[in-house]
């Protein structure tokens, strides 16, 4: 089932001379950037004035000087240009939080949620022009339902263009094929059959285009006809073993930023479907189908996303997915993105608890889910004590927050009289005392005890050899505290004499293994 378009609107700012303006040139100066390509220094960016003089990208620097002797040439500095482009993107976040720079001369903003703040689409276009003027950049702006359409109009039409529904096809018709950013193969193939502009391309038969030019041809034909290429298919029992799924075709998205643009529409449809069934997502998967290339082993990437607290809020899911995509490196352009609900639950709503902080900007379950997704399941946990004599086994991880919290200890300070103990039974009194009568344990326990050397003098420790400090004198020590256990298992039996040692201004926990006679550093206080 194909649903209506997602209602997104894309504002594209075409900056014809940004790459030279950031170097101090103006659009009416004849200037170019060069970089090494194919063993020669070639033009990679031009001012409009340089183009009017006949210079083209790809021309060698020497050929450019021969054609236009007065051309100013600068070497491209990719890192500096990238920083300036990022700064430009940040500036335009004043208009929308969804800003990207997928192409060298354009910024793309998704503005469906912010247009009303600027008095409508013409208002936001005016504001964008003001921002460019403040930065000293020439620009042309277009606003349309598809970013490729908006970019084509911004690049090839004079002035600013706001495309109303139904106007896109007519406005794009006279533009050259290159405005669609089609591959060279597609452009040459179309020129070979006499197709020169977008209007002629839009008239071609759909089946013929699909048969001859594949997915790229179909995608670009939809754009040429003013149709939204990102119509989504959503339905229960659709794809992936009967799980609800939304998908979008992306025609070769090369960065994760481009994937962000597809998220709101996909998630809106998916969440609406969940709502119809009173369900909320617990676990979702983002599946990226990559362009079919022979040099990569996997044609798809599967990204599990934990939701934490079950939700069908599109904004929450979008935030979680965008966070998940931050660390993703695409091995190939993405042809299709699917979001599937792996596990759902009946949505009974959520009531904050009395101890939940009002300052919380994110529900705790969502935070824990994000941390576990990024760091691993084993990285986020609570702790509980274990009744074991071996110090390193005296605790273990557990889920957090705990389902069955332990009652608070009736005392807090070491050696304090247990509160609430009023029994005359000496055994009960002794049991209440025992947990508080444990000797202090180090705050830091090394994952692996570190072998050290110790010199003793009589019954006391005299010097300790620490790895970065050499031999240091022991100021004072206390011990030994003998610990042993598991005598019944030969391979696990152990016996150690522990000492608390102060040396070099620090307090350490060391032990002597009574089986081997060796000393080890086990922790720090």
């Amino acid at each position, binding site marked *: 089932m194909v649903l209506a378009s997602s209602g997104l609107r894309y504002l594209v700012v075409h900056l014809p001379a940004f790459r030279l303006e950031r170097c101090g040139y103006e659009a009416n100066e004849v200037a170019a950037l060069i970089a090494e390509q194919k063993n020669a220094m070639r033009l990679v960016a031009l001012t409009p004035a340089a183009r009017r003089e006949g210079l083209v990208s790809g021309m060698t620097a020497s050929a450019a000087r021969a054609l236009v002797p007065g051309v100013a040439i600068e070497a491209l500095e990719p890192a500096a240009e990238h920083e300036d482009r990022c700064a430009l993107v940040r500036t335009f976040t004043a208009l929308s939080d969804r800003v990207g720079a997928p192409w060298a001369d354009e910024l793309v903003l998704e503005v469906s949620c912010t247009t009303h703040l600027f008095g409508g689409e013409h208002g936001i276009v005016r504001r964008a022009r003001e921002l460019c003027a403040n930065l000293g950049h020439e620009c042309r702006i277009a606003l349309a339902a598809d970013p490729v359409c908006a970019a084509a109009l911004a690049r090839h039409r004079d002035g600013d263009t706001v495309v109303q529904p139904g106007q896109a096809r007519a406005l794009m018709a006279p533009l050259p094929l290159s405005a669609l950013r089609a591959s060279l193969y597609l452009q040459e193939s179309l020129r070979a059959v006499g197709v020169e502009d977008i209007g002629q391309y839009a008239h071609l038969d759909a089946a013929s285009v699909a048969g001859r030019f594949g997915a790229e041809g179909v995608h670009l034909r939809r754009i040429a006809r003013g149709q939204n290429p990102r119509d989504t298919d959503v339905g229960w029992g659709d794809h992936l073993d009967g799980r609800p799924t939304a998908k979008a075709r992306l025609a070769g998205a090369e960065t994760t930023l481009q994937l962000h643009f597809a998220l709101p529409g996909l998630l809106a449809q998916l969440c609406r479907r969940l709502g119809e069934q009173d369900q909320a997502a617990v676990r979702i998967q983002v599946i990226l189908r990559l362009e079919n290339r022979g040099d990569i082993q996997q044609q798809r990437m599967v990204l599990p996303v934990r939701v934490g607290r079950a939700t069908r809020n599109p904004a929450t899911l979008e935030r979680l997915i965008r966070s998940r995509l931050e660390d993703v490196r695409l091995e190939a352009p993405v042809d299709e993105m699917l979001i599937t609900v792996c596990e759902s639950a009946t949505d009974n709503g959520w009531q904050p608890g009395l*101890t939940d*902080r009002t*300052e*919380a*900007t*994110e529900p*705790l379950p969502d*935070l824990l889910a*994000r*941390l576990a997704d*990024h*760091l*691993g399941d*084993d*990285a*986020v*946990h*609570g*702790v*509980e*004590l274990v009744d074991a004599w071996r*110090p390193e086994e*005296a*605790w273990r*991880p557990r889920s*957090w*927050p*705990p389902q069955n*919290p*332990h009652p*608070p*200890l009736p005392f*807090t*300070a*070491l*050696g304090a009289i247990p509160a609430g103990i009023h029994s005359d039974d000496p055994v009960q009194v002794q049991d209440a005392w025992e947990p*508080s*009568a*444990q*000797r*202090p*344990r*180090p*705050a*830091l*326990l*090394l*994952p692996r005890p570190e072998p050290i050397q110790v010199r003793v003098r009589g019954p006391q420790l005299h010097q300790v050899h620490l790895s970065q400090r050499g031999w240091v004198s022991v100021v*004072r020590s*206390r011990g030994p505290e003998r610990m042993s256990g598991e005598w019944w298992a030969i391979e696990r039996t152990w016996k150690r004499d522990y000492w*608390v040692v*102060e040396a070099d*201004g*620090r*307090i*350490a926990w060391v032990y002597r293994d009574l089986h081997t006679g060796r000393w080890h550093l086990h*922790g*720090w*206080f």
Partner: protein
Amino acid sequence: MGQTSAVSLEALRAQIRALEGGTPVHRRRASTGVQLIDDLVQGLPCPGIVEICGAPGSGRMQLALQLAAQVTGQRRAVAWVDPLRQLYPPAAADYGIDLDRLLVVRPPANGSHPEIWATEQLLRSGCFSLVISSLPGKKGARRAGGHQWARAAERGQCTGVVLSEYPVRDVPAEIRLQTGRGQVSVLRDRNGRSGHQRPLQDRPFQADPWS
């Protein structure tokens, strides 16, 4: 720096914030319940970042555990970022920390400093009153992203405590304490108490309850 200069600087910062039109951030020092810290710097900033630097065994963990014990004793949650995997929970329980209110985060050691990211997420979330982060690393090492912690703590309205072996310049700490040789010193304090010093509690050598 005298008290007058510190007050003037704070007033100047408030004026700059007002001119920039940002959301006013109310900085206050909250009593921690730990006598040593309250005497030394009159409480910790909330929101804000505090750094406690010192070699292992010098007493910095003692301060951090005491702070955590006070917070969990008030039925609030504490998050502890422990990339070196050295935090010993039985010792934490000895200090009176309610382990049910302690979340431990142990990021993997993959070279991209995930502890920086994890600490920022915990500070920003607002789910914890106190976030303690142990930073591994050598003297002078730079840690990209630490400058965002102050803003994250403001957003989450919580206090972040950074434990390090050496002072970390990238961390915008309002207070910087240093432990060593049984003392805790104030290296830096925006309220003008730099240079103050107090002795640490001699905890491991207290009277042995079994003697």
